[in-house]
């Protein structure tokens, strides 16, 4: 009788013994456009992180800029001949290249920080709702629905009108408009995952509920969250830019790319196109690259297309 079992020990399909992550990474790079997007995105992050070491000027050190260098065309030299402004200067005499890198830093920072915080808050709330269920769940979900039934821009607009300007305020506003997405995504994901047989199996093995939730269910929800959050970073950056453009986002002393564009907007037709144009290009590249990455991640991580 035991001969059957020994015989039954058969070869599994020949596959390499690599981790899921490595596999996903490999698959990701099969799409060249997405790979380029990722590389650009990484470069942008690097540039933003190390902006103070790369830029020829700290545009926010009032000692280092001079109004006499205001609105110089790309490639001009400063009035004392010490610096060349490759992308020109704005009305305050700030080097646009430096401003853009610093702006990138703020845009990215705001986008990423708000997304991460919103993700954490949303995940906790969503998980909690799915976990507890019942009244709590339906109350939370009603709030989420309510929040989601309003377009983000409207909510942010009102909030910022109430809160005023500031990095902290815009982050707060972005968190407030984003958390509900995550809460809903997490909750519905958890509910789907929770009803799968592997969770019942874990229950059957008398593993504690908490452990099942965090070490079985949650990891299976992460791919979706990763996809949502990349796309949301991009939309947070765009939203921040829009709000800044409407005059409600960042304070003038900490310009994000959106505010740079807005500041330069009034010069756009005047021939000082670079003040608005280059930040616009930077914003575009940033958002497009993130979206390319997000799009590819969706394909790579989407469980439905797998198997």
């Amino acid at each position, binding site marked *: *009788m*035991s001969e*059957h*079992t020994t015989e*039954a*020990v*058969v*070869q*599994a*399909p020949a*596959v390499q*013994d690599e981790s*899921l992550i490595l596999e996903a990474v490999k698959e990701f790079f099969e799409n060249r456009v997405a790979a380029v997007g990722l590389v650009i995105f990484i470069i942008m992050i690097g540039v933003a992180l190390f902006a103070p070491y790369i830029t020829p000027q700290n545009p926010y050190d009032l000692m280092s800029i001079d109004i006499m260098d205001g609105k110089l065309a790309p490639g001009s030299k400063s009035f004392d001949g010490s610096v060349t402004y490759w992308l020109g200067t704005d009305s305050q005499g700030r080097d646009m290249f430096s401003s853009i890198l610093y702006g990138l830093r703020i845009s990215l920072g705001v986008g990423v920080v708000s997304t991460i915080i919103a993700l954490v808050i949303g995940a906790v709330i969503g998980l909690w709702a799915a976990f507890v269920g019942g009244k709590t769940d*339906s109350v939370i979900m009603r709030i989420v629905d309510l929040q989601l039934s309003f377009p983000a821009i409207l909510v942010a607009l009102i909030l910022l009108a109430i809160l005023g300007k500031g990095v902290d305020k815009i982050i707060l506003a972005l968190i407030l408009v984003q958390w509900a997405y995550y809460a809903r995504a997490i909750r519905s994901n958890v509910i789907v995952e929770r009803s*799968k*047989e*592997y969770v*019942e*199996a*874990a*229950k*059957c*093995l*008398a*593993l504690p509920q908490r*452990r099942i939730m965090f070490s*079985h269910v949650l*990891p*299976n929800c992460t791919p979706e969250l990763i996809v949502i959050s990349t796309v949301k970073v991009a939309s947070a950056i765009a939203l921040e830019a829009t709000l800044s453009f409407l005059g409600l986002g960042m304070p003038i002393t900490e310009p994000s790319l959106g505010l740079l564009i807005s500041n330069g907007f009034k010069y756009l037709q005047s021939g000082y196109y670079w003040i608005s144009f280059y930040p616009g290009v930077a914003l575009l590249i940033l958002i497009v690259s993130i979206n390319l990455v997000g799009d590819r991640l969706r394909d790579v991580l989407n*469980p439905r297309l*797998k*198997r």
Partner: protein
Amino acid sequence: MSDTNKPYLRCEGLSRAFVKKLDLAGRIARSLGSNLREERVQAVDSVDLSVMPGEVLGLVGESGCGKSTLGRMLCGILPRSEGKIYYKGQDIDSLSAQEIKNYNINVQMIFQDPFASLNPRKRVRNIIGEAPLFHKLTTSSELDDYLAKVMLRCGLDPSYTHRYPHQFSGGQRQRIGIARAMAVQPECLVCDESVAALDVSIQAQILNLFMELRNELNLTCLFISHDLGVVEHISDRIAVMYLGRVVEVAPVEDIFNSPFHPYTKALLDEVPRLDRRGVDFTPLAGEIPSPLDPPSGCHFHPRCPHVMDICKKEAPVDMEIAPGRRACCHLATMR
């Protein structure tokens, strides 16, 4: 093991209803005269059943009749609406926390879908090893040996511990699922359609594995399936369910040789068999009724060839019709 004539698992009046309650707005609407109502599915309706130690009890019935629900309640992963479950003769409501844990570990479930029943983000090592480590059945240093033993027993190559489930074929995945349950050294398995999703040749492998494990470890087994051929092959006793109720329980020979309940008879008539060639199929008329709105009296009466007036009004009670055989039919009372 406890003595053999005390059931290993027994349930009494076990019921489970799934109810979709109306929300506040719904209740208001109803009080304003709209015809909303709660959606209520009596998935399992007051079932008495026992599984003897070392026995394989087959549970058959059509789709949606509550087999899985019953199995999951017996495993303790689905709460009951009503009724009692006795584990080795003790009401599980009166068990201490430790005993409950023992009960939970000792009664393991094997699932149907070899894809969904394994966590896709864990390696085999983790899938099988997590519970024994957690329950201190082994230590992390001895885990490899422990796993090797369990996996070999279930016909898996122990060198595959670092793989993910999707790197295996369906049959192998099913083995992983079995290994996961066997790793906690259970005394009883509840197999819910565990071979339904597999090809015949693979199904044979898994069935053989079950029979082997059972013989070697003297496992108790509740074998749920809608495939009568499989159940017949593996079970000692068979329980037939129809729309939430157990309609007949009997040793396997008796059921197949002299089915009592009209539904059992019809079911057996319709099982296609290798040796039944060129037959004229004579089916049982009618659809399976919706569990949302089951027929009155005996649930089977609209399809029953022997239907009587009483069947439409009164639900029959469970009766012993012969030693070791029970049925739930008004015909039994007639006799």
